[in-house]
């Protein structure tokens, strides 16, 4: 087990190094300098050059990557926080510590001051959506997979496919029209404060609904296919022939076997929900991680993009690890080597 965990951790580090370097390299080719974007179109070229120098954005790619990694690991202090630059960048945690994601050029704040709060907001949104997606998709998947081609299967399949094929921005606008404008029972945006006269839980209803509508049908379809496969297996027929009730067959024999493949899919939804909620967050003006990442990418705020990348990689690797553990529980034949 210890070796297994160590291997996973090593893989995670390797992925992080590769991903972070790739992001650096790709940002190199995106248009527009950060200095120009910070100062706006009407600054003179000389002013832009000054800021570029101060931000040390004109160093070669490898030098900047090395510096970023050094700052992150706490080996060197963040040079941008040196008061002599005149940038007024100050991190209350100090300039040199492990996990220093550096300074966001977009928000002019330490990345650590911005990103965790936003990630927390998205985690609430994603967590609630996930809590609804799992039971809904399992119930829908099992019911339609029990009897392939039956009336129930057809009906549920139509619902699932319809919902999955409506993009988030469309269902978002649709729900807003229904529940905000025509029948005003819910708030139309989710700034997560109560000064607007709506409670925070009421602000979560619509964004969570959009995510659930978009996602649960897809997972249900995966479970359905897996269920159909299992229901055709000889041991199910044996169980039915020996006189077990359908309920016993499904819960005792089919479900556990049918969950192995969808389990991976379900865990992948966590990654999707954390980094893929950009559209939903935009529609409802939700102050989350996705919107931060979008703004940072458009601006070329490399420190924020890198931090977001590392966090997403960490989440992906963790869910993968949880997935491996889950397989072991679901299928005793899978043994650790």
């Amino acid at each position, binding site marked *: 087990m210890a070796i297994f965990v160590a291997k996973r951790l090593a893989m995670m580090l390797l992925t992080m190094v590769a991903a972070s370097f790739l992001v650096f390299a790709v940002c190199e080719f995106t248009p527009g*300098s950060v200095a120009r974007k*910070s100062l706006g179109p009407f*600054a003179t070229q000389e002013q832009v050059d000054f800021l570029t120098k101060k931000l040390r954005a004109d160093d070669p790619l490898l030098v900047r990557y090395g510096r970023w990694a050094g700052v992150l690991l706490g080996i060197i202090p963040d040079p941008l926080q040196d008061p002599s630059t005149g940038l*007024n960048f100050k991190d209350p945690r100090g300039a040199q510590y492990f996990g220093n994601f550096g300074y966001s050029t977009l928000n002019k704040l330490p990345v650590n001051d911005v990103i965790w709060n*936003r990630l927390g907001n998205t985690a609430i949104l994603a967590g609630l959506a996930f809590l609804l997606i799992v039971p809904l998709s399992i119930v829908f998947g099992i019911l339609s997979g029990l009897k392939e081609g039956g009336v129930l299967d057809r009906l549920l399949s139509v619902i699932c496919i319809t919902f999955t094929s409506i993009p988030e921005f469309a269902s978002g606008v649709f729900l807003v029209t229904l529940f905000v404008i025509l029948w005003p029972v819910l*708030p139309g945006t989710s*700034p*997560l404060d109560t000064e607007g006269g709506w409670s925070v839980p009421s602000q979560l209803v619509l964004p969570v609904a959009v995510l659930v509508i978009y996602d649960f049908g897809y997972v249900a379809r995966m479970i359905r296919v897996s269920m159909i496969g299992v229901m055709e297996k000889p041991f199910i027929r044996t169980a039915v022939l020996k006189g077990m009730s359908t309920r016993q067959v499904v819960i005792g024999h089919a479900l556990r076997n049918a969950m192995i493949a969808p389990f991976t899919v379900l865990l992948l939804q966590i990654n999707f929900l954390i980094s893929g909620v950009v559209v939903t967050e935009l*529609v409802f003006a939700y*102050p989350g991680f996705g919107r931060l990442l979008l703004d940072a990418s458009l601006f070329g705020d490399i420190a924020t993009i890198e931090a977001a990348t590392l966090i997403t990689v960490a989440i992906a690797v963790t869910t993968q690890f949880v997935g491996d553990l889950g397989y072991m529980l679901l299928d005793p034949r899978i043994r650790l080597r």
Partner: protein
Amino acid sequence: MDKTSHPYIPTLLDQLNEGEISRRDFLRKSTLLGLSAGAAYAMAGIIDPATQARAGDLPKGGNLRIGMRCMEIKDPHLADFAEKSNVIRQVCEYLTFTDRNNITHPYLLEKWDVSDDLKTWTLHIRKDVKWRDGRALNADDVVWNLKRVSDPKVGSSVLGLFTGYLVEEYDTGEKDDKGNPKKSSRLWSDKAIEKVDDSTVRLNLFSPQIAVAEHLFHYPMFILDPKDNGAFGPSANGTGPFEMVEYTVGKGAKYKARADYWGGAAHLDTFEFVDLGDNPGAGIAAMASKQVDGLSEADAVQINSMKAFPHVSVHKVETTQTIVMRMHPDVEQFKDKRVRQAMRHALDRDKIIQTVLLGAGTPAEDHHVAPSHPEYAALPKWPRDVEKAKKLMADAGHADGFELDLVTRPDPIWELNTTQAMAEQLKDIGIKANIKSLPSAQYWEVWTSAPFSLTAWGHRPLAIMTLGLAYRSNAAWNESHFSNAEFDKLLTQAEGILDPKERSKVMEKIELIMQDEGPIVQPFWRIFSTVMDKKVQGFELHPSQYIFAKDYAVASA
């Protein structure tokens, strides 16, 4: 009128009485020359909008929430969007204030005096202004701020405005990588910004400039406390009506009214900005569920969907905000001025206004001088005339037309839509424009170097401000590479003429040059609009999208 008034003011008053100049011209000119706006409005016989709101019995107390993007606001002198400046505007103030009629008033100033040659501007600072920490505003504060924005290392866009009369460009003696001499900027003299006494500052210019008062209201030109060293945030000091208590990038800003504000405490107790992101639908949804009481800006499409809300009122104001399709006259296809004329004849402006702005615009006349500018001279209109345009194209040797890349950007969406509508109409005279839509950031890298592109220009109260920045030979923002000695001469002349009648005569010549051989095709002037809840009182939409929360009030339900 006291004895220190500018000698030209009696002449202006005569002209007003004889109907030679409009009231608006009188207001503009006389306030420019140092007459107080209140006195000017009184002489012209109309009510001063600045006192009008105060005079009314607006309800006291309450909270007001306005939806607007909340970006970083670390250094006010670097603010490069109206939104950023709005966040700071509630806490820090300007020396002058240009109202929605393009009239400039003293703000932190009591008044200003201008010498006859327009080269010496004396700024008299109000003596009753107190910083939040209790200290009185003084000349040292003002000098520090003016000098700071003039330092190229700081990066303020005010530097560009000051260049040419306070700031000069000089050769550093160094060479860049390509061997070109490196240029830098500096104040032209140690005496350029001069402290006279504790409440007086004198600006000594090296060339005449008529728009100094307007430049002092340029959105990053805040007067900050030198102690804060240019940094801003919830603890920052200010002379303004509010104290910022909370700010979260991408989420919002919260303010508390100051009871000891020099201009009398604000009507509101508290004020907020709420960040609704870039999605126009979020603004509509937030208004629908009354999560905000108004938006800082709402486009025609958004307004269309909100018209039906019973609690929403729509506000509109004519602006001098526009977009120009500009051509480099040194490029093969555009060398012949008849090609540029043909393009101006090819446009059906009303149709563009209808399709792109849903009617929220007025037709422009290709010379970048708006009817609401005081120096505007009316010229005959150029309606769409495809036959004439085709003939001009043929005469210029382009009977079969040509194909060229047209650079633009995708946001705000009306810019791209305008580009498409114009490109479609140009097809009829044989010009095939291949639209290259670049992301904003990339666009601003090439905006002066692309041979054929569209650029949006912000609202400016005087036409000569824009003309001087954009079309004078070798000007900093001369994106069209237009260079015409006669135009430059006339513009310099216009900048020094005080008499509006005489001035608009020169402007007529300038406008004619622009129509004859100028580098632009200009479809419209935008009407700027937004929405507010009907309970919001005292709100007047400013053409530059500026929010002054001190003037607003909310009626309790």
